[in-house]
């Protein structure tokens, strides 16, 4: 009796079993490409909306402040900046295509804007990993 209960507890509810099927990295990839999309896929609507608003808001603020989008890195700091920018996923690529952001940092607010863009990318990576943890059951 106890063994059967343990087996059913390990298997989880039908909803949990259903959530374990499919491509396990989909929320991670979707969350990276579109901020909040990983949580939306897992039906965490409120969390996804707040994450999307925060990350898109921070990225937009960076663009409005004439922040620089790193494109061709020349030194280690530029490479790190590019890595941070790439964390925003499609936001970075769309902004590059549209020619948004400044080529050179010329005013103080542009320096802040550059940091806003990089940090938005890093926060998006954290959010995407959180979606992955929710998907794998590491986090409830």
């Amino acid at each position, binding site marked *: 009796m106890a063994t059967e209960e343990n087996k059913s507890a390990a298997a989880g509810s039908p909803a949990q079993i259903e959530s374990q099927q499919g491509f396990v990295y989909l929320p991670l990839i979707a969350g990276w490409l579109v901020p909040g999309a990983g949580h939306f896929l897992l039906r965490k609507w409120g*969390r996804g909306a*707040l*994450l999307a*608003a*925060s*990350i898109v*808001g*921070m990225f937009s*603020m960076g663009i409005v*402040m004439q922040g620089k989008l790193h494109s061709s890195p020349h030194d280690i700091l530029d490479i790190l900046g590019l890595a941070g920018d790439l964390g925003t996923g499609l936001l970075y690529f769309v902004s590059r295509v549209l020619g948004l952001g400044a080529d050179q940092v010329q005013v103080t*607010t542009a320096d*802040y804007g550059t940091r*806003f863009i990089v*940090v*938005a990318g890093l*926060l998006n990576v*954290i*959010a995407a*990993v*959180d979606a992955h943890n929710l998907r794998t059951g590491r*986090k*409830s």
Partner: protein
Amino acid sequence: MTHFPAVVLFALFASIVFGITQRETPMRMVRYGAYCFALFVGSVIALSWVMFLIAR
């Protein structure tokens, strides 16, 4: 935009993400987000006064 509104917005956005991703229940998310926000803004105010006093 001046320095302080930029800092407050930065702290707000970062705290929301930290709160949601680092805690599991909604109440703990709110509390941790508020804690991070207070630390961000409080640190900025404290360091600003330190820099002001050093520069004098």
